[in-house]
């Protein structure tokens, strides 16, 4: 039974696990747009409802995601307020069917066919949103990515 309310408040914190090298540019020390790009065939981006699940859970999920990646490594967590997602023009909705505490950012832009790009007008609109999310997100690099638990100050 999932005790978390389905409705998502504007001041809730959501977290995206960051996988290097795809989501963060270490030279420029900033998140890449790919950090908030949707899964193929959807307009949805997986996040954890950190306000309810806590940093340890977010980190565990991040490590799990990166472990399933064939090329990436978990390096930290990007934290957003739900209102920042709304300000960018996207939405957040609960998706507890994945697991309790899971949510999706929904960009509302129809996914292109597999292995093909979006039309440029839609790509431009999406990139503006992604830019806002990257600028607004607080990236917390994890100094101990291989260890269990979030040892840094709470976000």
């Amino acid at each position, binding site marked *: 039974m999932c005790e978390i309310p389905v409705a998502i408040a504007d001041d809730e914190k959501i977290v995206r696990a960051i996988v290097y090298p795809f989501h963060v540019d270490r030279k420029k020390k900033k998140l890449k747009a790919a950090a908030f790009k949707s899964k193929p065939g959807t307009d949805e981006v997986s996040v954890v409802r950190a306000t309810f699940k806590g940093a340890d859970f977010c980190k565990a999920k991040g490590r799990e995601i990166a*472990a399933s990646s064939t090329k990436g490594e978990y390096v930290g967590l990007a934290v957003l307020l739900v209102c920042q997602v709304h300000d960018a023009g996207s939405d957040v909705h609960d998706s507890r069917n994945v697991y309790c505490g899971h949510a999706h950012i929904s960009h509302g832009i129809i*996914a292109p066919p*597999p*292995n093909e790009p979006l039309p*440029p007008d839609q790509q*431009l609109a999406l990139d503006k949103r992604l830019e806002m999310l990257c600028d607004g997100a607080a990236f917390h690099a994890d100094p101990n990515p291989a260890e269990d638990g979030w040892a840094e100050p709470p976000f």
Partner: protein
Amino acid sequence: MAEPFFCITRPPTLSLLDKKAVPALVYFMPSRGSHGAMYAELPAVRRAIEDNAFVEPNWDGYGSLGIKPETKENAIQGIQNVLLEAPVPDITPNPNGTLSFEWETQNGSAHLEVGQTMFSFYVRPRAGDPILFSGPADQINRLHGSLIADLLFPRGGVTSATTSIRYSVDV
């Protein structure tokens, strides 16, 4: 013997000058001298494309698609035309199985995304409207590179000398 990968002297494809391909409000500014990548940089670009063209799916852990060999070839062929005019971009794979090339300066940004059969392109200058193109992946052209070079990497105008010459009377 294998052919060299980049052919600098290759004549440009002018398919963008086809009326069907050019929106009415788009203007071209002929590039004033090359802003293009240096010859020595080109093998590194090819290597970067090959390094990012992950065949296996789920390379990002979020269910990404693998990059198809056709997409990689399209990207290699297309970017060599663009690099005749534009400098080396950032290269990133996308979860949808495409490859992106990105340029960003204080003057704006540009994005070229290449897929299995199609490409999508825009230049977004800080001032003025964005310029958009899309089409078959084999029509990525050096004129796309010109737009990037001229709008994002403009050359400075002619400047006058700033050295001041004074007579010294206190010698």
